[in-house]
């Protein structure tokens, strides 16, 4: 008996070498924590540099891992090529094809696959940019500033584990790591009334959602007898057996259990019936944290949502025993509700942060619309692409807001008036980010929406296409209100002299605009990567 135990222990220790990115982030967090405790107050900025160093290292290792997996898994495959000219012969050619495999680590707790690596890349990038924002945000300056950087890094760790979790326990643990640390981040400005309120609201809504989710999970465990999502005796497999054999009244009970679990996941991405927390939290939290919340936890939430969805409803297969159309209809309904509620509420806002909070709800709706097409990988792939684009445009908008808030002291539209006169480059880039959020070419926001709409149109979901189109028009109105306030309206009073804006803001904003243009021009390779990373889930 002990033999088996030692074998398992040995295996787990060896698996540690395969999660180097997570270990690096953890090391960065711990070293930063130690440094923050012993460093004098004026040196605590360096905590961020320590964390940043490890984040970048983790990103590098992650990309290397990705390459490694891709190369390992390349096999030659015969492909039939039919020339356009009918007189020429049909050619067979052997082409290297990447066969993606999913490695289960730690006895099936997490998966080491390209899907997880894609999301880890997004999460690490988002955290690194947020760290740079936090370093230069005036509202975060003070003797305890190091703590905020550490909280960012710890959240990133939770998000990384969440994007590779394949076991209910692991999903719960990493979701809670992500959430609990986020509560502290939202309430970080302890003397600020709004920030404290945001913190307590986030904590209470989050605890509610995770409580309901965990109760659903307990029934899922009881019904299927497993905590693993995948595998022959995993939840997904058992679920189909059960549903196939169930009486109609039991079917309802199963659906209730599934709904409870999805409730927790939809809460994390702030989809419509579970979005009430997000405007208040986004408005009250420090602006840097708001930008971070709108991207990183949302990305991780989408990762686990896509993984669970595809486990339950495998792409391109008919082995789901019905219920697929019903699931797709449910997601489509949530998507329509989410984008409409988000956009309509955003129209009335007078605070830029709150406006962008509602706008990020709407964007979750667009991304969910992509997930409502589960017949092949194209819909989810479009969602993954959109997520990457969303990272750049939304974080970019918040980046500029942090810079403007530094010298205007508030994110109300009336305080931001005419800010372009002091910061021409930042003002212009903000307008570009807003164009991209609306979905105007030549920016990647357009491509993201286009790919989702094309997929939906292909399978005849014209209703959804119509709603995405209508919502884009609505969103144009409030995005342009913000753009007008910053670029056209005259400033209210003579500018009070203040410190110059650090040039890192200019570099980051310009870089993100460049990324948006590049993602527009070279959307195809990126989209192909997105399609590729879905392979291991099939």
């Amino acid at each position: 008996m002990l033999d088996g135990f030692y074998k398992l222990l040995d295996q787990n220790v060896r698996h540690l070498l395969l999660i180097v990115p997570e270990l690096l982030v953890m090391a960065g967090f711990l070293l930063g924590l130690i440094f923050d405790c012993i460093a004098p107050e004026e040196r605590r900025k360096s905590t961020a540099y320590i964390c940043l160093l490890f984040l970048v290292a983790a990103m590098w290792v992650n990309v290397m891992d990705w390459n490694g997996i891709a190369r390992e898994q390349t096999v030659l495959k015969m492909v039939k090529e039919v020339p356009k000219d009918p007189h020429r012969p049909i050619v067979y050619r052997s082409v290297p094809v990447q066969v993606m495999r999913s490695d289960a680590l730690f006895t099936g707790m997490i998966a080491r696959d390209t899907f997880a690596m894609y999301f880890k890349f997004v999460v690490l990038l988002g955290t690194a940019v947020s760290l740079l924002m936090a370093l230069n945000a005036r509202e975060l300056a003070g003797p305890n500033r190091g703590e905020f950087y550490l909280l960012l890094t710890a959240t990133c760790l939770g998000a990384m584990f969440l994007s590779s979790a394949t076991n209910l326990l692991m999903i719960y643990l990493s979701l809670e790591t992500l959430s609990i640390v986020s509560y502290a981040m939202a309430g970080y400005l302890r003397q600020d009334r709004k920030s404290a309120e945001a913190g307590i609201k986030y904590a209470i809504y989050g605890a509610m959602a995770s409580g309901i989710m965990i109760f659903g999970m307990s029934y899922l465990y009881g019904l299927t007898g497993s905590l693993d999502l995948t595998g022959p005796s995993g939840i997904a497999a058992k679920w189909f057996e059960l549903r196939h054999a169930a009486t109609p009244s039991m079917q309802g009970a199963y659906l209730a259990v599934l709904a409870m679990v999805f409730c927790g996941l939809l809460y994390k991405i702030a989809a419509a019936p579970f979005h009430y927390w997000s405007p208040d939290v986004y408005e009250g939290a420090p602006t840097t944290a708001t930008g971070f919340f709108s991207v990183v936890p949302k990305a991780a939430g989408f990762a686990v949502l896509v993984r669970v969805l595809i486990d339950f409803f495998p792409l391109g297969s008919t082995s789901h025993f019905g219920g697929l159309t019903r699931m797709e209809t449910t997601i489509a309904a949530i998507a329509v509700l989410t984008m409409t509620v988000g956009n309509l509420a955003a129209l009335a806002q007078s605070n830029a942060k709150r406006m962008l909070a509602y706008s990020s709800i709407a964007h979750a709706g667009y991304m969910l619309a992509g997930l409502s097409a589960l017949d092949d990988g194209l819909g989810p792939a479009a969602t993954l692409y959109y997520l990457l684009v969303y990272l750049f445009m939304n974080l970019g908008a918040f980046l500029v807001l942090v810079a403007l808030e530094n010298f205007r002291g508030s994110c109300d539209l009336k305080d931001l008036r005419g800010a372009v006169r002091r910061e021409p480059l930042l003002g212009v880039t903000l307008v570009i980010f807003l164009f991209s959020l609306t979905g105007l070419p030549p920016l990647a926001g357009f491509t993201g929406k286009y790919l989702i709409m094309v997929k939906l149109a292909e399978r005849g979901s014209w209703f959804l296409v119509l709603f995405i189109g209508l919502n884009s028009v609505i969103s144009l109105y409030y995005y342009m209100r913000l753009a007008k306030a910053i670029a056209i309206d005259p400033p209210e009073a003579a500018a009070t002299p203040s410190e110059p804006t650090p040039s890192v803001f200019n570099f980051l904003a310009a870089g993100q605009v460049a990324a948006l243009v590049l993602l527009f021009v070279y959307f195809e390779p990126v989209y192909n990567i997105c399609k590729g990373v879905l392979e291991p889930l099939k």
Partner: protein
Amino acid sequence: MDAFANLPVLADSLLGGGPDNLFNYLLLAGILFALGVFAMISRRNAVGILMGVELILNASGINFVAFSRFNGHHLEGQVFALFIIVLAAAEAAVALALVLAVFQTHRSIELDQVDEMKL
């Protein structure tokens, strides 16, 4: 009719069937869950709501342990219950710290009064 057909079984397990069966544990957990949800909805006091959350978490803990014991599964469920206890403690620590921060800024932890941000 179906519901009534099960009544004797239900009564049996409630009264005479002995305490040690799955149904009783699930019933207990269900009642705890319902109480927790009720507390979260009806309470205006932040600490009261957090107590409701604790009830829900413990209800799921009981579910996990009960399923683990009666459905012949391995220890997974019991391990899960341990993790729930740990995370409930962590969550309570952070949430109570935030309650303190709210009390310092608002001099109240009644959530109706902690509501500055509105549409």
